[in-house]
């Protein structure tokens, strides 16, 4: 009985100490304005309000392929990856809804792949992963002690991007040829997509659909369907799988045999998107704006990370 009491005390004190540690390590921006779990789910809440001009919304293809820091360095555009693993259109909607409460983005790039993901097909393994991702706070934040010592506050260096420079080459085949696969966009996704469209109209945000290079997640059929879908809603659709300038080398620019891009691939995609935004005058550059010095600071740390890992 005495030992049981001691064990309970030990665990309780441990939980208190752990919570204090987590609190110290977490970014404080917006921490008290949202429920704790909401704060953790939507990484963009860590950003200072009204500084992000472009959102890239979607699943793991987004956070593996679009590096906002590369775009910042090259074009002075502030952007953020509002992406989560195997994101559903419903989650895209929730994310955008929260994001526009704190930011005034001019453009949202919505990844078309989320439209095809049927919530009914959510496997229990995926649900377990979702659960783990949601509660494994320390995986993402524990290293913030370095920022606290160096800058006095945690810096969100990657802005939602997941940096991996590993190469795991793919067996190359022409995935963009017609294989007559039957695919569809579930009705529930259309419903949430229309809600996203409403938010964009209300907030005067330009919505662009885009497809990210992936041998395993993308196909000719998806391209055709997304093109038709975009036409139906009178939206732009850019399929980066077909863009000549990007042209991914699947032997060197993928981290996992063609599913996702690695850093080398992400650089190409980011540069193309940045240039697209610039060429179309969708947002202005903040490169020389002293209010955006923290973005330069983040970039310095980001580039250090590129040399280190």
């Amino acid at each position, binding site marked *: 009985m005495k030992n049981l009491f001691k064990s309970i005390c030990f665990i309780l004190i441990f939980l208190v*100490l752990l919570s204090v540690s987590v609190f110290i390590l977490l970014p404080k921006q917006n921490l008290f304005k949202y429920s704790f779990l909401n704060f953790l789910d939507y990484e963009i809440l860590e950003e200072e309000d009204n500084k992000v001009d472009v959102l890239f919304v979607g699943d793991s293809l987004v956070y593996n392929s679009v590096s906002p820091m590369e775009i910042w360095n090259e074009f002075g555009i502030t952007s953020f990856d509002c992406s989560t693993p195997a994101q559903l259109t419903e989650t895209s909607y929730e994310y955008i809804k929260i994001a526009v409460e704190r930011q005034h983005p001019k453009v949202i790039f919505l990844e078309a792949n989320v439209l095809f993901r049927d919530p009914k097909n959510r496997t229990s393994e995926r649900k377990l992963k979702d659960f783990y991702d949601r509660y494994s706070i320390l995986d993402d934040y524990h*290293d913030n002690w370095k920022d606290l010592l160096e800058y006095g506050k945690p810096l969100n260096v990657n802005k939602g991007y997941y940096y991996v420079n590993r190469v795991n080459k793919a067996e190359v085949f022409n995935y963009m040829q017609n294989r007559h696969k039957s695919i569809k966009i579930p009705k529930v996704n259309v419903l949430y997509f229309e809600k996203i469209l409403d938010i964009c109209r209300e907030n005067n945000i330009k919505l662009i659909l885009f497809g990210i290079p992936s041998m395993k997640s993308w196909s000719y059929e998806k391209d055709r369907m997304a093109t038709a879908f975009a036409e139906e809603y009178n939206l732009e659709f850019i399929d980066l799988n077909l863009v000549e300038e990007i042209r991914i080398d699947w032997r060197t620019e993928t981290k996992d045999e063609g599913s996702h891009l690695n850093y080398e691939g992400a650089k190409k995609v980011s540069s193309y998107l940045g240039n697209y935004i610039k060429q179309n005058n969708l947002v202005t550059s903040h490169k020389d704006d002293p209010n955006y010095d923290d973005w330069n600071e983040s970039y310095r740390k980001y580039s250090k990370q590129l040399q280190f*890992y």
Partner: protein
Amino acid sequence: MSYFDLWFAFLFVPVVVLIFLLVPKKAKPYILLFASYAIFFMVSNFLIIFLLLSTISIFLAGKKFKKLDGEKAKELEKEDIDKKLIKEKYKKKKKHILVLVILFNISFLFVFKYLKFFTINLNAILKVFKLEELSIISLIAPLGISYYTLKAISYVVDTYNGKIEADDNFVRLALYVSFFPQIMEGPISTYSETAEQIYNASKVTYHNFCYGYQRILFGFFKKLIIVDRLNILVKQVFNNYMSFNGLSILIGIISYTMLLYMEFSGTMDVVLGIGDIFDIKIPENFRQPFFSKNITDFWSRWHISLGHFLKDYVFYPVSLSKPLKKLSVSLRKKLSAHYSSLIAGGIALFCVWFLNGLWHGAGWPFLFFGMYHFVLILMGNIFEPLIIKICAKLKINRESKKYYGFQIVKTSLLVFIGEMFFRADTVRDGLRMLKIMFTKMFVLSKNEFYYFGLDMFDVALIFIGLIVVLVISILKENNVNVRDEVEKKHIIVRWAIYYLLILSIIVLGAYGPTYAPVDPIYADF
């Protein structure tokens, strides 16, 4: 899989403990066996059949030995018989079984671990003679085959020699061979060291549970604070050694040796910690190896169980074999006792180090690693009388602390170089690195240090981590058990230490998106 997987240490082990506590005493060994086979099955699926075949083979061999011993005793009771002849007859029978079972077990090891290496080298020979080359087959080996095969061999040899009695209880033997904390990376304990303890484990006390987890956490500390950080530096140096100077390579090879030590000894902390939970004293595999006076001393402190195995089951049998005895006798007539025993012992030593290299992996760098230590130990034995004489002449006190310090530095340097060949992709790479160390020790290029891949915080943490381990090692070397000492402290101090340990692992550990954890190195051997 790794013993450092969180689910293993903090979910699987507690669940096994819980079930173990709930079931009646008779069922406890079955629970441990089930847990062991579950882990094996999880990693190697149906390759578990090979583990079962090994276990069954040694179980049957033991039974057969027992039966033959009984028959022999009966025959010896009879009158008017040639006892020597009968003994010879049974010895021969037993030897046949022994050889058969050893070959049976080694054949699996050969197929899974060495077939590819063997075929590649055979093809190189066939190519010279312009013969048709064989196709190369690479297989995924069953979990821990290098460890459980040696355990199986030690059991069958010990029963053959009558050192232990053959086990009639299959569960006890199976548990000895496959006990889940030991299956992946050893220690290669003998049957007499652990079989009874594991089978008879009956309780998990509050004290043992805490005591075990303290050691497990220390293992995690080594892995997450030191190993996964050093890995960044090691990868940088070994993968791009041509762009570094000698000093950087020296730092790289010291780091690799530290990484190897921390990874393997950290795993042993988890393994022995789990043993402590069940009150099973699994033998230590390390004893402060970096306080060694010479290479022989080092190998009695590093991977102790492999050293014991090779000494007991290779060195002694070879040295005491008839041909070597004959050679020793004939040499004694021509040479002094020192040199004649050196030559005879040298042959046995060669077998030990050849097998040591081979055991670590099917590749020339591993064989080179084995031969490197063979030469060092042999040289040490040859020159020992000379060194004693020189020290006496120069009036150097070989028992002084200064001399001990010198010995530690010398031994460590030799170990670092050995581990460099161990880690290098090819022997040629190792030799090139050695050359750079001798020719470009301090030539600075812009790549030095900055490109080690670590930031100042990582470097600082590695140092702090190493200092913590060093202090604990010094205490251990002086027979101070840190866990026992902490236990004597006031509860506030004690708990503060535990919290510090746990929180430092959680907050300062090298995990998450920016780090790539080191795979269990010794699990591949």
